[in-house]
């Protein structure tokens, strides 16, 4: 099993969610994060003093999937989250050893 971790632009959340449910993915966990990367921040002034907003708001979506579904999910996210402009984000794929559903105690693929 894999943990797919996608960093996306916040306003793309609904589209990504819809894309995932369309391919049968019904579970995910979303976190508010700040991203730092090639997409440059902007400089603002407050009472005449400069400051840089270089951490930009992003969303992190974590989706645990069976190995077989990885490519499908990656594909769906890419299509939904892409705007073509710098800062669209990344997808990281990490290995998972095991998954447990707390309610039932099920393990592995069953638990996803």
């Amino acid at each position: 099993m894999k943990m797919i971790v996608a960093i996306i632009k916040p306003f793309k959340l609904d589209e990504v969610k819809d894309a995932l449910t369309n391919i049968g993915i019904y579970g995910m966990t979303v976190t508010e994060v700040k991203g730092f990367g090639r997409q440059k921040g902007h400089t603002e002034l407050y009472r005449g003093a400069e400051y840089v907003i270089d951490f930009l708001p992003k969303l992190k979506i974590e989706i645990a999937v069976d190995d077989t579904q990885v490519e499908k999910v990656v594909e769906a996210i890419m299509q939904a989250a892409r705007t073509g402009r710098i800062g669209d984000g990344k997808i990281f794929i990490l290995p998972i050893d095991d998954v447990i559903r707390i309610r039932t105690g099920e393990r592995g693929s069953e638990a996803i």
Partner: protein
Amino acid sequence: MMFKYVILSLLFILPSFALNGYVDGREVDKYQYILDSLWVSISIVFIFLMHAGGFSMLEAGFVRAKNATNIIMKNIFTISISAVAFWLIGFGLMFGNGNDFIGLTGFMQIRENINLFNSLSSYSPPLFLVFIFHLLFASTAATIMSGTVAERIKFPVYMISVFVITGLIYPTIGKWIWGGGWLQKLGFLDFAGGVMVHLNGAIIALIGAYLLGPRIGKYDKYGKPRPILGHSMTLAALGTFILWTGWFGFNGGSTLSADVDLIGKIFLNNTLAAAGGSISSLFVSWYLFKKADLTLSMNGTLAGLVSITPGCAYVVPEAALFIGTIAGIIMVLGVIYLDKIKIDDPVGAVAVHGLGGIWGTLMLGVFHSTEGIITGSFHFFFVELLGIIVCIAWTGITSFFMFYLLNRFIGLRVHEEEEIVGLDIAEHGTESYPNFSIKSY
């Protein structure tokens, strides 16, 4: 005998000697003059609080956190620029001597010279106070739209339009209704601005919202309205409470004299109409949506207050309760309807001030204690109706024209990216709540 007359005449001269004086060239009862003026001064403070604290907080609470600074900036500017515009042009247009359609004297001349303003000759308080009182009314009419066009209008466009509204559009119809002009001569009554302030403001707001179009995300791809929740219910409530409070000054101060019996009546009518509007809107929203919607109940309070504004001095308390209660219901239906026809009004101002103003003015035609339909005459009702139509026509056309030109030459709406990132960052370079984690979606 002559001796007796001397004494008697002395007796009658004496009180004028003790009590009277000359103000702005008029002879007045000194204490009455002070009392009238004090009451107006104090009302001014209440109205100012209402305008500054009330509208700003209400509107700020109803928009998203990313546009809160922007809406406040607009309110500060509205108050400030309208003072200048009304001083330069508006007050002269509205109360200066001229004809039935327009005033032509008194621009930039708000001095003790009352002769430039014959239409004010029956007012007791000094000119300065009358000026500020009417300035705040003009400025309120202008500020009503700020909530409706919020979160997408360009700041410079907003700035210019406030100047035009308080300098030209409002004062002109103001001449007709309050400045001794033709509608006033026909017998049109609008005690504290149901048409002048609220309907005027709502029409401008409606035209603005129509031309601007809805905010991004307000309608889904099937055209179904999606709510965009206001960022702070407590701020919106604070604004509502301040408005509710200030309305005592707004309606009560419109006596422009310390006529305390009338003030008492107005206060009671105000209280009952607001109560009616809050309760009815609460129950209607509860019935329709299964849960009691706070924002609609707050709008309902205001709809009740708006609806009693034109008639608060003329109707009995029972009528006030009735008028306010029905206003609350009409307003809720109006909000739903406007949502459906894609007029995106973040704060509900069109329904509150527009429908409330129309309804209240019509009901004044019905319930006026001597001239209303209830006492048998239809004439007055039709005069009221005429006033409403005239207001819609005049303000609708002029403000359409104004926004149309602004759209041509500047463009009404901010760029899509600015709208998404929020006007606070885009136009003011700051966040409203830099220490708080704000949801990004």
